[in-house]
């Protein structure tokens, strides 16, 4: 596999997991063909929308203060929050994208899923409870705890907004493509529906509605995927060996039909059982792995979920539940991918004249739903995929809105003296603005290859947000100046290196192959290092009076982060 293909693959993969964004996998999903209007799917989606609007109405009655809006008043349990975090992670993209990757590459698909999972223990061990003990509404509360508020908040809000913006655009484009594909609706109609519903959830229901929409969707997706995996295994008498053997046979048959001699066809068929071309270049692999692992710990819409639980104990429980559900989900997608090889690739009903999947490569799971559960189940899975995007964009918008209203408006502009009602109003205005911007850009970027946007969001989260968060919490000599300069260096270097990487420079901007200055698929290995070294260097060189105050504040911060004594109880403090 060429470096460029690897880069594209990695770019697409980035999309798959962590965020729904993956649907964004413009590269992956490509320009989807419009399908015939699917009324069963639309009907089921309508049921979901009506149900969630009732929840929003109920949530709106409970959403009175800023704390209710940002963190559901801290009244979410660890189990519920775990499902919601898992929901943020189990995007339409990871569902459709990873099962498609398994269908194509077999074992390689498993390598991607593992990359998405392994960040969670690190979040648990190093950050989850400290975040809960120090923060109130946003991760900036934690990063700026002992520092000069204005510069650190400005940095954190920039980090949040940049990540949210790239993600949202990717989501919207992905939503439009997916819905065109699944429902047979026009692209712009799909984008407007997503934008409008997302605004309703966030504006009226705040975090309570956003969380419950995410929980319901997570349950539906887990149930649907479990059913599909069960049906596949049932067919093979619950023997993975029988399933693998049939898949190898199907792949061998396809290779032979393409004119390969028998020995080569057999080798190609068997290749799905081991690692293929995914990792040719270890630096790209490790860099990409770091972006996934540490990017997870710097995504603002994931971090804010730690403030919705009442205490550190529930925060820990929520990551354990999230990790469990996500791990289970990835095992399901693996089975679904192999199921797609045996049920979908062997059925001419799902194939076009060239032997490709009808509607594009990401349709593996969708066709499998039809094969194992008929048209009604197909409608169900399509509706769940739409619901997934909706739930994720709502979370993203809420996190962008809180960065503007809580970090910029309330803390920087009003110096912490804004009253709750005014802050709430600003966050609602921001929600509407973000919604409109997302719809407009979503339509503007329809034909663009936006695959790099989610990789970029992850790289920024890993190189800017995560180092600042970690160093401010764990390193006593960290200062305001170090955190802000190092954080911005991480942000700028991750953006620049992504820009001159093959995925953007050659694939998106169209410069000749081989002209990209940065040869690797992900900048994280380098930009994270720049971020950390920047924080360290500018902190130890910092001799200002403010630096002395920052360092002196560490002990009190540490006591609170370790014990939670004095921590906000999450409701209206």
């Amino acid at each position: 596999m060429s470096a460029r293909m690897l880069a594209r693959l990695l770019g697409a993969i980035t999309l798959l997991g962590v965020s729904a964004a993956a649907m964004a996998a413009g590269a992956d999903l490509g320009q989807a063909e419009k399908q015939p209007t699917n009324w069963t799917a639309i009907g089921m989606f309508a049921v979901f929308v009506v149900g969630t609007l009732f929840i929003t109405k109920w949530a709106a009655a409970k959403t009175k203060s800023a704390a209710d809006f940002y963190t559901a008043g801290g009244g979410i349990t660890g189990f519920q929050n775990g499902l919601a975090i898992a929901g943020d992670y189990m995007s339409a993209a990871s569902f459709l994208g990873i099962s498609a990757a398994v269908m194509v590459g077999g074992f390689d698909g498993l390598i991607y899923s593992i990359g998405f999972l392994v960040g969670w223990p690190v979040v648990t061990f190093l950050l989850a409870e400290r975040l809960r003990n120090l923060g109130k509404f946003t991760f900036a509360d934690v990063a700026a705890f002992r520092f000069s508020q204005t510069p650190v908040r400005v940095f954190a809000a920039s980090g949040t907004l940049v990540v949210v913006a790239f993600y949202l655009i990717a989501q919207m484009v992905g939503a439009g493509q997916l819905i065109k594909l699944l429902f047979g609706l026009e692209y712009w109609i799909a984008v407007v529906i997503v934008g409008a519903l997302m605004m309703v959830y966030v504006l009226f229901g705040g975090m309570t509605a956003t969380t419950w929409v995410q929980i319901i969707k997570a349950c539906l997706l887990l149930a649907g995927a479990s059913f599909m995996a069960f049906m596949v295994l049932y067919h093979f008498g619950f023997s993975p060996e029988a399933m693998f053997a049939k898949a190898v046979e199907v792949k061998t048959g396809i290779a032979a039909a393409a004119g390969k001699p028998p020995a080569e066809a057999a080798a190609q068929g068997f290749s799905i059982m081991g690692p293929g071309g995914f990792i040719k270049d270890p630096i790209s692999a490790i860099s990409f792995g770091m972006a996934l692992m540490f990017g997870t710990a710097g995504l603002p819409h994931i971090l804010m979920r730690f403030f919705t639980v009442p205490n550190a104990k529930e925060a820990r429980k929520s990551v354990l539940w999230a990790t469990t559900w996500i791990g289970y989900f990835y095992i399901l997608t693996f089975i679904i991918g192999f199921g797609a090889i045996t049920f979908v690739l062997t059925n001419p009903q799902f194939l076009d004249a060239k032997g490709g999947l009808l509607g594009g490569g990401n349709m593996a799971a969708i066709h499998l739903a039809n094969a194992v559960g008929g048209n009604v189940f197909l409608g169900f899975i399509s509706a769940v995929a739409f619901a997934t995007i909706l739930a994720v964009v709502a979370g993203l918008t809420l996190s962008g809105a809180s960065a503007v209203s809580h970090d910029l408006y309330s803390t920087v502009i009003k110096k912490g003296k804004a009253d709750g009602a005014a802050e709430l109003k600003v966050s609602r205005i921001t929600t509407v603005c973000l919604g409109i911007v997302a719809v407009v850009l979503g339509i503007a970027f329809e034909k663009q290859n936006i695959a790099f946007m989610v990789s970029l969001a992850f790289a920024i989260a890993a190189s800017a947000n995560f180092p600042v968060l970690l160093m401010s919490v764990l390193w006593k000599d960290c200062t305001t100046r170090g955190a802000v300069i190092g954080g911005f260096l991480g942000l700028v270097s991750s953006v620049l290196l992504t820009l001159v990487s093959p995925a953007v420079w050659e694939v998106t901007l169209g410069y000749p192959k081989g002209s990209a200055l940065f040869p690797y698929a992900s900048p994280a290995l380098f930009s994270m290092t720049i971020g950390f070294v920047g924080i360290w260097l500018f902190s130890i060189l910092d001799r200002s009076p403010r630096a002395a105050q920052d360092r002196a504040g560490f002990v009190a911060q540490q006591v609170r982060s370790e014990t939670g004594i004095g921590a906000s109880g999450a409701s209206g403090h």
Partner: protein
Amino acid sequence: MQPDLTTRILNDPNYQALKAKRSRFGWWLTLAMMVVYYGFILLVAFDKPFLAARLGTGVTTVGMPIGLAVIIFTVLITGIYVHRANSEYDALTEKIAKAALQ
């Protein structure tokens, strides 16, 4: 937080024990996770034939149980930490809070 409260907690031997124990445990587990994950990635990068070797007479390869084991390990190691933190560390934290806030 009032300065005297911070000092009181700082001087509590339970606090020192909690901080040392939890931080050591957290970093060890982080290291374990890194070793397992990057070990897996390096195996993929440098020893593909090993992962693609057949386990028995069938088509199932060595890589399949290893991949599954990495997923299960990830969930288990998170569970181990959370279990210990929610029992042992939280009990210590409660003691510290009680002593400091009385």
